[in-house]
Structure formats: structure tokens, C-alpha cells
């Protein structure tokens, strides 16, 4: 599995979603530099989250008879429901704080896409 490519794609996606949501509030030309710099912490977040919560499903359960597609179909629905619930809980816990909405939205979308990318990789 090309885990590193998954990390990179997730980082780009998470950065895009996060900045797209917050850009109307705080986006100026100077901010471009911060967008690029923000990719470093976003990359760390993506690596930690994907390596700890998504990759193990594929590395532990994928076999010749139980392919990536089967792993996705079996575990992703529950992962998505739990992740979505935690994200909604986090948003309400932060009292609907704007940046937290952006953070949790990008987290949910990115982790979901990361599952899709893993599931579509050849065995």
C-alpha cells in the first residue's frame, strides 16, 4: 500500500478544505504564506490520524479472500458514523466556534477520503 501518497493527498485535501471554510473570515494575500506553512501541522495531524485509526484496519484485516473493498465495506460505515458523531460533538463542545467547524469538517472529509483512496489501491 502506498501509505505515504495517502498522507500527502490527505494533507493537501485537509489544507484546502480548512482554508476554504475559514478564508472569508481571515483571508488576505499575506495569508498564502500561512497556507503553505499550515501544511506542516496538517501533515502531522493526517499522519497520526491515518496511521492510528485507518491504516490498521487494512494492515490487520486484508487477506487474499478479504480484499480492500471488503475491509472498506465492513469497517468504514461504522468508522464514518463514529467519526461524524465525534466531530459533531466537538463542534458543539466548542460552542459552534468557526475555526473548530472548519477543523472538524476537514477532519471528517479527509479521513473519509483516505478510506476511499486505500480501498481503491491494488492489492
Amino acid at each position, binding site marked *: 500500500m502506498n501509505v505515504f501518497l495517502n498522507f500527502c493527498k490527505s494533507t493537501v485535501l485537509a489544507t484546502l478544505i480548512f482554508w476554504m471554510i475559514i478564508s472569508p473570515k481571515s483571508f488576505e494575500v499575506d495569508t498564502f504564506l500561512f497556507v503553505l506553512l499550515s501544511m506542516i501541522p496538517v501533515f502531522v495531524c493526517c499522519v497520526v490520524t491515518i496511521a492510528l485509526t485507518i491504516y490498521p484496519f487494512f494492515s490487520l484485516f486484508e487477506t487474499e479472500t478479504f480484499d480492500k473493498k471488503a475491509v472498506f465495506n465492513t469497517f468504514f460505515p461504522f468508522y*464514518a458514523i463514529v467519526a461524524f458523531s465525534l466531530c459533531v460533538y466537538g463542534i458543539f463542545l466548542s460552542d459552534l466556534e468557526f475555526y473548530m467547524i472548519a477543523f472538524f469538517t476537514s477532519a471528517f472529509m479527509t479521513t473519509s477520503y483516505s478510506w476511499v483512496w486505500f480501498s481503491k489501491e491494488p492489492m
Partner: protein
Amino acid sequence: MKTIISIIAALLFSTLFYGQNIGLNLSVFSVITIGLLIFQHPKIARLKSAIVFIVVYFTTAIVVYFNHSALAIFANCVAFFTLIGTFSESRSSIYIRWLNGIYTTIAAYFQRRSDSTIDQEQQNWKKNRDYLQLAKLIGIPLMVSIVFILMYKNGNPIFNGFIEKINFEFINFQWFLFSLLGFFLFNNIINPVQIHPATTKDLQTDNQLHPTGPLLLDQLKKEQQLGILLMALLNILLIFYSITDIYYLLNNDITSASALSSQVHSGINTLIASIIVAILIILYFFRGNLNFYQDNVLLKNLSYTWIFLNIGLVVLIAIKNTEYVVVYGFTYKRIGVFTYLFLTLAGLITTFLKVRNVRNLWFLFRINTQVAFAILMVSSCIDWDHAITNYNLKHAENLDLNYLIDLTDNNAILLQDYTAEHRVSSNQQQRIHDKYIGFIDKVSERNWQEWTYDNILINKKFDR
């Protein structure tokens, strides 16, 4: 076609919900959802179970408009997930429908992305694409331009002014993102998906219990002996407890709030413990082959007795709670006790049916989740704040007006009318007046998306 429908629905979604509170918009959203589902899946929409849940969802949509309570909104959301789950797989159990409904709503897009297969032509095109070159073409000029813009900005005040003038505030980007959310939502629910392993397993599992192997008579006899002894002992204990409880109820005139409260709460605690133990013991003994053992009649009868004694316990607590309500009126907690008692009654009856008809554990889950769903839907139809206030003002022997003032604004008109006809303390009168004025202001300031039945009431009251 589906994309165009999703885009139109998304625009409607942002028109209804962007920057608005819940009101008429949720009812309209429900109608749009029902319309879309029927339009996209006419065959499923003709099924009996789909019709039932369409009616239920539509009813909750109307209830939201009339009641505007948190319970009504919650019931509407549950009905929404159930309906989506029904369109996902109409033969599944209600809890699987909830799972499918939630999954479809939040992640159907990703499921479809994963399911989609790329044809050979696309694969070749993807292979031939030079990603590195593409990244270079976009990334390097973009980064270099930004660095140079930042440098020139500091070096030239005219250039700096020009750059500062560029702003994209005329574009309501948040509205666009909100519409995108609407698109994502409708795109998901138009094509419901399933959680495959759970749905398949659910469809394969029936409600009937089957023998787990050959009947080992000696082992079953021993197990039955233990069961009979345990159930007999528990029955005797519960009979003794019930007699003392009835005696206490008949011979003590309990009217103080604290005594009634303690009676109800200690009764509820006993009931919770008793029923959990009862159901667990019954489920343990009737988990397998003992159901098919010919001499199990005595154990079954003792179990039925135990269930009916627990129903008696439910009735006793209901009587105590009713006494509490007659004297001090309704509160949410007292209504909660009645709800709990009703759910318990349903649990005991279904346990009885499980033993009598040799049903499995799934039968209990299926039927009890259906009962819980039905109770939620029925209770959401009642405007509880209004009902509690109306009952307490008319019938409660000891009225707690402060409790009623602390309820939501749904009872503001009732309280205001009450103060016009009855004497209340000046402090309470002021609080009721403030609540009423606040309510009128809030209702008057609503946009059409936020309208509820209160708007009509207020308009009528002030003849607008």
C-alpha cells in the same frame, strides 16, 4: 439528471436554512425530501413499510411547525433517518434502518466513490498523466508568484495599495459552502446505500429460536432444577415485597412532596434492579435447548408469574406517581417516570412473548426498538410545556408557578392569561410579563423560514 436535482435541492436547502433558526424550513425540507425520494424511487415508495414511514416523517414535519419543541425536532430527525433507511433496505429491522439512514446521510458519497469502477480508457488516461509535471506546472508558478507579490508589496506603496484593494467580499463564500453542504446531503440521500455486513446479517436472521444441538436431557434437567429453585425464591420475595408495599400505600397518608418523591424514586430504583435481573435470568435460562425440553412447563410458569409480578410492581409505582401528580402537578421528571414505566411494561410483555413463542434475542431487540420509536413519535406530537402548564394551572393542588415560568416560551401566552385572572406575587408577575414580551418579540422578528404556528396565534391576538 440526478446532479441537476441535487443542485436545485441544494439551492433550496441554503435558502431555507442559511442563517435561520428551525421552524417552517424544517417542515418544507421534510416535504422536499419525501418528494425527492418518491420521485427517484417510485417502486420502493409504493411498499407498505415505506408508506408508513413517509406518513410518520410527514407528521413529524407538521408537528415541528405546530409544537416547535426540541423533542419534535429530535423526532423529526429520527423519522428522517428511519425513512432514508427504509429506502435503503425496506425489509430490515428498525435499528438497521437507523444505521443505514445515518450512514447514507453522512457518507453515501464515499461509499459510491469506493464502489465506482474505472473503465480501461480512464485507467490508461490516468496512467499516462504525468502528475509530477502537473504539480510543477501549477505549484511552482503559484508559489513563486506569491513570494514575489509579497516582496513587491513591501517595496512599492502603489503596488501595495493595489493588492490591498483586491477583496472577494462581494462573494458570499459561506453561502456557497452551505449550498455545497446541501448538495452533499441531497446527493447522499437521493441514492441510499447500505451497511452491507449488518444489513445482510439482519435479513438472514429470523426471530425464531432453533435448537443449538442434540438435547442432553441430564444436563437440561439439572439446569431446570436450578432455574425452578431460583425463580420460585424470587417470586416469593417479590410477592412479599409487593404485599408490604400495598400495605404501606393503604395505611399511610403520604402527601408531603419529599415523601411522595422518595416513594416514587425508591420504587423506580427497585423496579430497575428487579426488571433487569428478571429479564437477564429469564434470558439466561431460555437461551437455548431448555426451550425445547418437554418438562419445562413449571419453569415457564414460574417465569410468567415473575413477569406478571413485575407488571404489578409497575402498576404500584404508577399509582404512587399519579398521586404525586394529583397533588403537585406534572413535571418533566414525573412524565419521564410514566414513560419509563410504559417502556418497562412493553419490555416485560415482549419477554413474556419471547418465552411463550420460543423467540430469540433479536426478536426482543426488534420489537422493543419499534416500541421505543413509536413512543418517541407519539410523545413528540404533544406540546409538553403547554400541556404541563395547562394541567397544573387548572388541576394541581399545590401549584409551583416558578417551575412553569422556567419552562420554554411555549407556555408564555397561557401564563400571561393566568396572571390576568389570578393573583400572583409581583416578582412572578414581572417574570411572566418579561417572558411574554420576550416571546412576542422573538416571534415577531422571525423570517418566513423560521415561522411556526405561534406566528399565526400572535398575529390573530394582535389582529395583524
